[in-house]
């Protein structure tokens, strides 16, 4: 969908305002999250950001997989050894103090890096506790996160939440760049006055209410809206927030976070709460006269309407998608998991300290620990062997090898038949069994994924997760009925299994079906043959499987299918949750 000319103009305008706000006080704002792909549009935005920052303010670019010591800083071993004194190398974050950090591909950011960014945004300082160092470094900065995620990939929620302004520039045509530029004078003027801008309670209340009506749950967004309103007022050269500023805040902060459309008519009953509310409040830092307050209250509902109208303009157009968005944000596939897995494979498991010894092939020398071990002896060794003063003498005894613990995690993939033939009653039993297994997996910290097939296709209901809360939600929402696309079910379970294997986990597929396939994939085969073909693939890939035959009268067909799959066959006319669980446990133990 190509946006209309008007819309393009509006988006560019919002982007310009967002960048100007970032220029006023990047740390007070927090940052901007932009959805767009690399290209002229993004380049223009980054250009603006560079232009709008104060003279000499740093704007480093952060690689997504930056290591912790580069991010926060750490011991500069070379300089430390050269000078014989502790020399600290400042990381990217402390270096960016007073400026903006540019984070491309923010959807792929490592969860640990994201956590550090969050901490820096929250506390305006970096606390270094590494490698024998203890330091607190100032770190007032804003973040310009560039999200290039395709479907399903999103910037980690904790990070996105801390960036007040969310822009979507992904649909803007790269050939029609605007000829506007940030207005530097007004940004500079605003920088001087933004600390003194005040906001009337009417607007605070209106922003909070608008947030509730738009289904913006967290309180952080409301706090951010107030901050943005104040910065916006400063930008406009005002010392008091007006309805325009509040509307801009509603549009820039609340709209993009909306999870529902407000009710058609803004409720009239907001008059009652405000007087009672007034009673509870501690006296405001009163700088506005009483009569002025009266006047404000009179048009409180007007303000409310203005804000909601403003916010609605920036609510993502796809209203149907809205309801799903809140949920998707929570249960959608997370880039975080992927990053974590990649890290695990390069390091070979979680580090578990170091041991002394000469590195064997495949082992890694732990340089820091080795130098640590060698350090205390330097004076002594030098005095014995009158060597070069600057050279460190490392002996074989000093060598340290990194130890990693590779825990084989298992990933249990449930492939549940939710078709009409499986019947409602069976589905409920299957859910019960899944829950039981889950409870056990949870205790053992296994990952669990859920695929359901019915109607025409199979659907991934839940990507591998350890969060019980999500699984419960997902199961509760699983409905039954329709055809039995068994082949599609097996296929998507297998895809998941191979995916899990690629991440270094051991997959186990648990099929729960009566094996009465009646929908084939578009392959031209009969449903049964198609299912058998898929089953053979499972065996070919040597993925462990458990086949639970849920039909009231177990049939040879299901047994054949299980055999072709190489699966353990278990006829369970009555899905006994306990028995299923113990079977799964036994199998995961075998595979691990």
């Amino acid at each position: 969908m190509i946006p209309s000319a008007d819309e393009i103009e509006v988006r560019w305008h919002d982007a310009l305002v967002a960048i100007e706000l970032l220029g006023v006080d990047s740390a007070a704002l927090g940052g901007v999250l932009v959805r767009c792909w690399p290209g002229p549009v993004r380049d223009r935005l980054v250009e603006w950001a560079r232009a709008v920052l104060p003279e000499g303010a740093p704007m480093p670019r952060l690689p997504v997989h930056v290591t912790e010591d580069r991010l926060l800083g750490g011991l500069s071993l070379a300089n430390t050894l050269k000078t014989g004194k502790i020399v600290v190398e400042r990381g990217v974050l402390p270096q960016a103090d007073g400026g903006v950090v540019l984070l491309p591909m923010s959807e792929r950011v490592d969860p640990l890096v994201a956590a550090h960014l969050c901490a820096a945004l929250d506390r305006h300082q970096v606390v270094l506790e590494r490698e024998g160092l203890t330091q607190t470094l100032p770190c007032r900065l804003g973040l310009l996160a560039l999200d290039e995620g395709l479907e399903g990939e999103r910037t980690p929620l904790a990070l996105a939440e801390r960036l007040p302004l969310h822009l979507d520039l992904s649909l803007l045509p790269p050939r029609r760049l605007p000829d506007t530029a940030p207005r530097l004078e007004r940004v500079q003027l605003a920088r001087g006055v933004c600390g003194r801008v005040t906001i009337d309670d009417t607007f605070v209340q209106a922003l909070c209410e608008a947030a509730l009506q738009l289904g913006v749950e967290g309180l952080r967004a409301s706090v951010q809206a107030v901050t943005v309103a104040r910065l916006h007022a400063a930008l406009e050269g005002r010392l008091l927030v007006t309805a325009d500023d509040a509307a801009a805040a509603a549009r820039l902060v609340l709209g993009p976070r909306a999870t529902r459309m407000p009710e058609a008519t803004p409720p009239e009953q907001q008059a009652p709460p405000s007087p009672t509310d007034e009673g509870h409040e501690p006296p405001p830092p009163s700088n506005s006269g009483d009569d002025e307050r009266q006047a404000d209250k009179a048009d409180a509902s007007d303000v409310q309407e203005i804000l909601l109208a403003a916010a609605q303009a920036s609510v993502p157009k796809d209203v149907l998608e809205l309801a799903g968005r809140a949920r998707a944000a929570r249960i959608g596939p997370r880039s975080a998991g992927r990053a974590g897995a990649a890290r695990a494979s390069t390091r070979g498991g979680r580090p578990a300290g170091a041991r002394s010894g000469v590195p064997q092939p495949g082992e890694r020398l732990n340089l820091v620990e080795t130098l640590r071990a060698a350090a205390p002896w330097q004076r002594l060794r030098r005095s014995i062997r009158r060597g070069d003063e600057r050279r460190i003498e490392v002996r074989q005894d000093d060598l340290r090898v990194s130890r990693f613990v590779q825990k084989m995690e298992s990933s249990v993939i449930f492939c549940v038949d939710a078709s009409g033939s499986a019947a409602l009653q069976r589905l409920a039993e299957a859910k019960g069994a899944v829950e039981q297994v889950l409870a056990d997996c949870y205790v053992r910290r296994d990952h669990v994924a859920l695929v359901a097939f019915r109607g025409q296709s199979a659907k991934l209901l839940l990507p591998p997760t350890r969060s019980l809360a999500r699984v419960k939600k997902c199961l509760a929402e699983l409905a039954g009925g329709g055809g039995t696309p068994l082949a599609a079910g097996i296929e998507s379970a297998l895809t998941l299994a191979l995916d899990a294997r690629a991440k270094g986990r051991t997959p186990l597929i648990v099929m729960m079906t009566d094996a009465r396939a009646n929908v084939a994939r578009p392959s031209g085969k009969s449903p049964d043959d198609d299912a058998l073909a898929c089953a053979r693939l499972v065996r070919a890939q040597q993925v462990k499987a458990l086949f639970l035959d849920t039909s009231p009268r177990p049939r040879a067909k299901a047994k054949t299918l299980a055999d072709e799959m190489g699966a353990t066959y278990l006829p369970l006319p009555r899905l006994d949750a306990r028995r299923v669980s113990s079977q799964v446990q036994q199998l995961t133990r075998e595979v691990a």
Partner: protein
Amino acid sequence: MPLFPFSAIVGQDELKLALQIAVVDPGVGGVLVFGDRGTGKSTAVRALAGLLPKMRVVTGCPYQCDPASDPARCPWCSEAANRSVSEVAVPVVDLPLGVTEDRVVGALDLEAALTRGERSFSPGLLARANRGFLYIDEVNLLADHVVDLLLDVAASGENVVEREGISVRHPARFVLIGSGNPEEGELRPQLLDRFGLSLEVKTPTELPVRVEVVKRRSAFERDPQAFLAQYQAQEATLTTRLDDARRRLREVVVSDAVVERASMLCLSLGTDGLRGELTLVKAARAAAAFEGATEVSDKHLKLVAPLALRHRLRRNVLDEVGSSVRVEKALGEVFGA
């Protein structure tokens, strides 16, 4: 950035109660806070630092030893020629994410080794947290082996370091406070009951409360100093109250009847082991002391029972009925009859 004042936190009564109990009786055994993002979990915990009464320490001791303690238990004090006394703020140590193990337990002093060729011990965060609080944000994201280590030290009150030819043993008594968001992954169930108190915080849904939270937060961000000044008196009052409660804690009477009730409660809930009962009684006593009461009553038990017990129930992780509801029900049964 200065810390947001504790008394300016709107609502979140249970969280405040739990933290206050932990201040009054550090022996309660840690607090675990789970909840949505942006509910002020971290704010409340960090705000504690501004609230705690000062404590007396041995001057210069890296482990902040109590002057009244046995010098032999501390590697520094046992070697010190004379132990002079000074007053310092109770430490609230933040465990940063990505902290390395050597910074937690302490390690070879790299500087001393490099510059003087000496082998000496550089105390870690556990030393700095001695007699204070150790806060882990996102406890569910911390590497399992670090969590294990922390819980072990928290339980034993002593940190034993054996590495790089260094052998040190030093006191490390602290209150462990963990917080996290269940959506990011859950805490290993084995760890749950190692915390004394646990609670879940939620985002307030009522408009007036939300407005007030936003107002205060914005006022604070805009001018922290002015905001702090506004709450200074309240903070001071609360500090005095906590200090008094701490002093009177030992004098608060716990009658046999109360202990019996606590046992009944645990029995009817089927909690495992004695830890639940002990924590329940201790927490109730701290709550009574904080309130200024001279004796623990049923009221105090009721007040703290959800905090002390909800994470100790025989786990049925898929139970739709929350643990809090089960505790409430048991309370009704034991006290209602």
